């Protein structure tokens, strides 16, 4: 066994197969098209189904149907396609349908630049659907993360019966790198909890739990799925207390478990007065900058790389920021995630460095911000 030479999208495909994905549908869009190719190449021979939908709405729709019929499903797109997914993402939240959505971000707004990376959808992924209920968003920083976080994404989707978005970037998805399968973290695979005995109501939760157990459409016991506001039986409800309890549960099942899936890397340096915060492709430059500052300029800077973006890992941020005089957030947009960090660390100085020119933020630019900010 040796190193694999794969791009981020191929690593996502591998992670999905490892996690048990058996259904994939997407519509071609740069920079996510080669993920479609990878799935078309590998899923059918693994006994699964890979489809090219007639559009993005259909692609995610196929996945939602297949997921309710019991398969682990994934779809992939970029900003323009994510916009078209919006209504079905709300549905996946409301109907508690497990699905992994890969968003390979590219320069926007709108059609933008197909082959230029950006992290411009960071707030959109969280707030881009009706109802405003939480979603889980994980952000890989390199090919190894693409593999590992895809497995986590499936596990979380199955465990919490919800959509999980992988926030990748053209610069990760289409850049090849070395992946060491012996050393890469391979989380144990989790499957959705099946209803075992007793009467089945499709959205009924056991006392003390927040996630209903699952049965597939097509099995011997009848299953209902609906995008309408429903009670535990899956029929429309107009009862205000039942409605309120339902949406609160949808929020609670994600938010109250945030700590269990707050993935991050923290490089702490003794004597550091500045905490650098980055995610995605910018994490690499931030790492290089922190190393350079320490080794060649004798400036210790701590670095926090966030791999769970939503829900915001507030405790991780607070712990990492203790004693820091300055927090510097670098991201490939005009200042999106920094708003969350300002909210969480409201008593500390939080500065922002970002650009959205299609070019990566370089270590030199970050060093400049640290030393002259």
């Amino acid at each position: 066994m040796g190193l694999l030479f794969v791009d981020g999208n191929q690593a996502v495909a591998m992670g999905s197969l490892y996690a048990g994905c058996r259904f994939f549908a997407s519509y071609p869009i740069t920079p996510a098209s080669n993920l479609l190719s990878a799935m078309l190449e590998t899923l059918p021979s693994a006994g699964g189904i890979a489809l090219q939908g007639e559009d993005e709405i259909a692609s995610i729709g196929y996945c939602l149907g297949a997921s309710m019929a019991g398969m682990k499903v994934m779809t992939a797109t970029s900003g323009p396609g994510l916009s078209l997914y919006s209504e079905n993402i709300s549905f996946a939240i409301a109907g508690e349908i497990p699905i992994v959505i890969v968003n390979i971000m590219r320069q926007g707004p709108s059609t933008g630049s197909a082959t230029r990376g950006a992290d411009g959808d960071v707030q959109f992924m969280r707030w881009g659907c009706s109802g405003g209920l939480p979603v889980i968003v994980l952000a890989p920083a390199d090919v190894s993360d693409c593999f590992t976080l895809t497995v986590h994404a499936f596990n979380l989707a199955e465990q919490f019966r919800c959509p999980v978005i992988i926030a990748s970037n053209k610069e990760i998805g289409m850049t090849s790198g070395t992946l060491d399968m012996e050393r890469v973290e391979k989380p144990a695979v989790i499957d959705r909890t099946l209803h075992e005995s007793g009467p089945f109501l499709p959205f009924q939760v056991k006392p003390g739990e927040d996630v209903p157990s699952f049965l597939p459409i097509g099995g011997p016991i009848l299953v209902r799925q609906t995008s309408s506001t429903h009670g535990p039986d899956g029929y429309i409800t107009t009862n205000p207390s039942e409605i309120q309890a339902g949406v609160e549960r949808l929020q609670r099942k994600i938010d109250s478990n945030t700590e269990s899936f707050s993935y991050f890397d923290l490089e702490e340096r003794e004597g550091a007065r500045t905490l650098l915060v980055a995610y995605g492709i910018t994490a690499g430059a931030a790492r290089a900058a922190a190393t350079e500052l320490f080794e060649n300029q004798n400036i210790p800077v701590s670095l926090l790389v966030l791999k769970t973006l939503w829900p915001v890992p507030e405790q991780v941020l607070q712990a990492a920021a203790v004693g820091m005089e300055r927090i510097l957030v670098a991201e490939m947009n005009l200042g999106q995630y920094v708003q969350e960090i300002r909210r969480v660390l409201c008593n500390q100085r939080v500065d922002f460095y970002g650009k959205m020119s299609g070019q990566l933020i370089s270590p030199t630019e970050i060093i400049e911000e640290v030393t002259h900010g």
Partner: protein
Amino acid sequence: MDSLLNPDRPPVFCPGCSHDRSVHTLDRALKEMGLKGSDVVIVSDIGCSGLFDTFFKTHAFHGLHGRALTYAAGIKLAQPHLKVIVTMGDGGLGIGGAHFLAACRRNLDLTLLVLNNFNFGMTGGQFSCTTPEQASVASSFLNLLEKPFDVCNVADCAGAPFVVRSSVYRKDLPELLAEAISFEGFAVLDLWGGCPARYMKKNPLSPKEIESAIEKLQPYRGVVSTNIRREYSSHYREEAAKNTAGVDWQGIEKTFEPTVKERREVVFLGSAGQRVITGGGLLGRAAILAGMNVTQKNDYNITVMRGPSVTEVIVSPQPITYTEVGKPDVIVALSEEGVRKRWGLFEEMEKGGRVILAAGVEIPTTDAEVLEVDYKAGGIKKKERALAALSLLAKSGDPVTLEMLREAICQSFQGKRMEEALGVIVKAAEVPFHVKTQSK
């Protein structure tokens, strides 16, 4: 077999609504076929037809407006034994037009009931894609301006192999519906009925009038013989079984010792057709043979067969954090348009850096050593240039050796392609080069 109607949830349509009739027609068809509730899923759309799933004791899926066919397809592919019945109004058909066309073309075994009542009942009687021009509806004069859509004609043109146009009041409809559900492929039923609460207020429409309107149109009574072909789901599985490509989980075994101690940045600046990206990939694989980390980032035009082609390869024994090239150690300059894409990079190069320059290509002044090679005179074809330059680079052993490069070729290609690539290395060794002095 028993009725599959849900005794706890009787239909709640407006008095006289034809949907009520359709619910009972569907139930009779399912009963006649002897189906159990768990054999069937009803996938309903939005609007009054979206209530259908609640009246039956079957599996049920009620999703977004116009998208019912997409969920149905996912369910059918995952659970091929299910009878998948989609109920949709003329509204859902309009907004989901692309899915309708795709379903007709695909021929997955689904049965679509278009409960066509010529308007949007639930939202107040607005015009739909089937509203007649002369009808008076809630969208002011707009329907006057648009031609209504012939559901059956469209289905036929798009490839649906089973198409029915019928009044919901037709006596033998349950039998016809059972035939459609049994049909192995995509079956479309355009079922005409009345919405007394909205449409019929200003546009009286008796069952008789429906009947005679249908008689004037091209008849569709089931199988469309010109569209008969393999059902998608079984065909998919048959083709998939032939597909044996799997994932390479093994990777590239380490068989060489690392040749460099520090990060190296190599940039190829060329044009489409020079196999620049393939060359970068071979460099990467060669470096991985020595257990080194590699990244490769490409930049080329959307029109892949013309224009500049750039690849940036970073090789390092240490983990690579930042994946963009800053100060290249090597630039392979193969074409003007490629060079123009990264003109500024030459300035960043330091003493000790190397440029492999195809003769005739203009580059900016640089501190790096420039090796000029006349590939044209050396008989190196356009598609061989990147590899030829790579083999000159490998001669130095930095960042890979010729042995590593040869091994990478043998592992990446097979047969003729491998022979050709190995041949390029031999040929490239013969091409003379000289150090070019640049005047500052």
